[in-house]
């Protein structure tokens, strides 16, 4: 009797949260799954079964967006995590001058709004923007670099932008994790004559493994959802070089003839990718 009573109490206490979750989370997810099985123009939808999935395989733009997204993932995430780790270890050194200042400076980008910093990057990397002007003034280049008008350079700009924005965020996780490592381990290593680079690679990195894994998964999910930067800096161009899956979903919904069903299908591709990549990273990081 007693347990039944606590059951009722328990359920009624979590009920409001469950109801809200059901309405705003579970229902939309199921509803978009249903929508992904439909085809048609705008609101004139009809059931299409697997038609949208078949369309994916033959859609060159989707394949391009998928390629770009994975390219950003493979290139940018390791650079960012490595940089964040290096910054964190450097800033963890108590003898470093101006530690608090550097820590704030590196973390600061992460409090700026995505749209604001994107607009700033767009103007900085313009044909006669501040970056080209500086490079020309310093005689590093004699022609302005076509940052936003060349497909290759546009990808570089996007990678620079997201690395600038997110490195500090990842660094804070590493800094927090480093506080939990017993200092005496390093002292012991120093006494044993272990060089600094080996202390980083053989001691710090293995001990930070859970947090590295966590950051890899978070960054993977973040990169798969990359939207604000490409929307505002390059609009996916030039020649779709920076088109990501999320931006393609937006285009399918708002820029092109609205294909709500197909757009939902592409969004499920992101869901599947996140699931596969997270599972893969857990597998790879599992202790042998």
């Amino acid at each position, binding site marked *: 009797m007693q347990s039944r009573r606590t059951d009722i109490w328990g359920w009624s206490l979590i009920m409001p949260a469950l109801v809200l979750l059901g309405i705003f989370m579970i229902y939309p997810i199921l509803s978009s799954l249903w929508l992904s099985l439909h085809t048609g123009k705008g*609101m004139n939808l009809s059931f299409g079964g697997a038609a949208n999935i078949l*369309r994916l395989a*033959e859609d060159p*733009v989707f394949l391009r967006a998928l390629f770009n997204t994975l390219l950003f993932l493979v290139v940018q995430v390791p650079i960012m995590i490595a940089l964040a780790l290096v910054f964190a270890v450097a800033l963890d050194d108590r003898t470093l001058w101006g530690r608090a200042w550097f820590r704030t400076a590196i973390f600061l980008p992460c409090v700026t709004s995505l749209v604001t910093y994107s607009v700033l990057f*767009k103007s900085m990397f313009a*044909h006669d923007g501040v970056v080209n002007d500086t490079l020309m003034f310093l005689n590093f280049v004699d022609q302005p670099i*076509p940052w936003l008008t060349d497909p290759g350079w546009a990808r570089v700009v996007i990678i620079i932008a997201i690395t600038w924005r997110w490195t500090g965020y990842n660094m804070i996780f590493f800094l927090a994790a480093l506080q939990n490592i017993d200092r005496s381990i390093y002292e012991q290593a120093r006494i044993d004559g272990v060089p600094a680079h080996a202390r980083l690679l053989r001691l710090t990195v293995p001990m930070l493994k859970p947090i590295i894994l966590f950051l890899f998964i978070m960054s993977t999910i973040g990169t798969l959802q990359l939207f604000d930067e490409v929307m505002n800096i390059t609009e996916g161009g*030039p020649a779709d070089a920076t088109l990501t899956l999320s931006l393609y979903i937006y285009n399918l919904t708002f820029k092109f003839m*609205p294909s*709500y069903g197909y757009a939902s299908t592409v969004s499920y591709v992101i869901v599947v990718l996140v699931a596969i990549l997270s599972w893969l990273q857990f597998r790879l990081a599992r202790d042998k």
Partner: protein
Amino acid sequence: MASKTKTFTRALFAATAIHLFAAPAVLAGEVTVWFWDTKFNGAAMQEAANRYKAVAPDTTITLVDLAKADLETKLQTQFASGVTDGLPDIVLIDDLRAQLYLQSFTGSFEPLNGAIDHSQFAPYKVAVATVGENIYSLPFDSGVAGFYYRSDILAEAGYAAADMTDITWDRFIEIGIDVKAKTGHPLLSIDMANAAPFRMMLQSAGSWYFTPEGELNLVGNAAFKKAIETYSKMLQAGDTLWKPVSGWAEYTGAFTGGEVAAVPMTGVWITGTVKSAADQAGKWAVAPVPRLDIEGSVNATNHGGSSWYVLSSSAEKTEAIDFLAQVWAKDADFYQKILVDQGAFATFLPAREGAAYSSADDFFGGQTVWKDFSTWVQQIRPVNYGIFAGEVDAAILAQLPAMAAGENVDTIIENIAAQAKSAMQ
């Protein structure tokens, strides 16, 4: 609450007034209008609202200014949600996207052919908003193209107005390279995210991405092939011809700042922006847009332009339609005023008789620009924009690097057609 009571009192007064003066009908209420560009569309709508006050003092016209992309996103999201509470009564829609909205959200817009005499508007504008028997728009501004250039810089390079008139794009490229070499000013800016030049070139030849029936019309389309060849030639000329820009602000900044000496691929609505550089007064001129070097291409085409639409869900539908009918489809003097004040070149034909349309403009060295545009607007070839122009635009833009690299034109066209075909479903 207070304002509601006030409105009610006013309505009551108005109702009494009917009996006294036997006015035809009483309309009271708030008509909300969504548009983009306060200085152009907004100012024209405000002027119309002021004039409507004299006709129906009890109707309030509320203007809501949004960025164009935001307006479209908001509108589509509301249509998709099926909740019509937040929708306005009148909305501005880009001509290029009109068919897409009318066909994707059937029943969301109110046919206006019963209330408005569409024979008073330019036929190509009416065609854009026609589905079957119904015409859904109050046609507003024209996108008639013009070739704006700095007459002082062109004169420095040895070109007079006659040299710029009725030329082909091939000739334009020759002049451009020559002017750049002599004066250092490019005649053109290119944005790798803008497909408008292709649409303009096609329409100048009376051709389009699609056949009038809506089928893809790229492979085997002589005008399209010529447009690709011409644009490839421009891209390959690189910085001997054009300046790269990215986005609207850089595009307009390039000529208002005095660096780029012409705006060859634009619509008449750019006039206000060109004139915003007051220090360049008297140094500009407008020539007819260049044509493609093929049979059937004319020195006139269209870029942009938009129209007003009434939403079916509107509670103030009667008021909204009456407003459009009483001012926008009737008041020729109103069109004179917005032409002078905003440079809004509308497609209401009776307005063409007015004095403003034949006045000389000192900014353009005394040229009678509006009269010229009135001539060119009549030469625009009507085409069916269809519902997939955005998809074909994207397919073309994806091939710009191939065009710049000088790859085989037929292969490029096949790639564009393949991508467009897969996107059109």
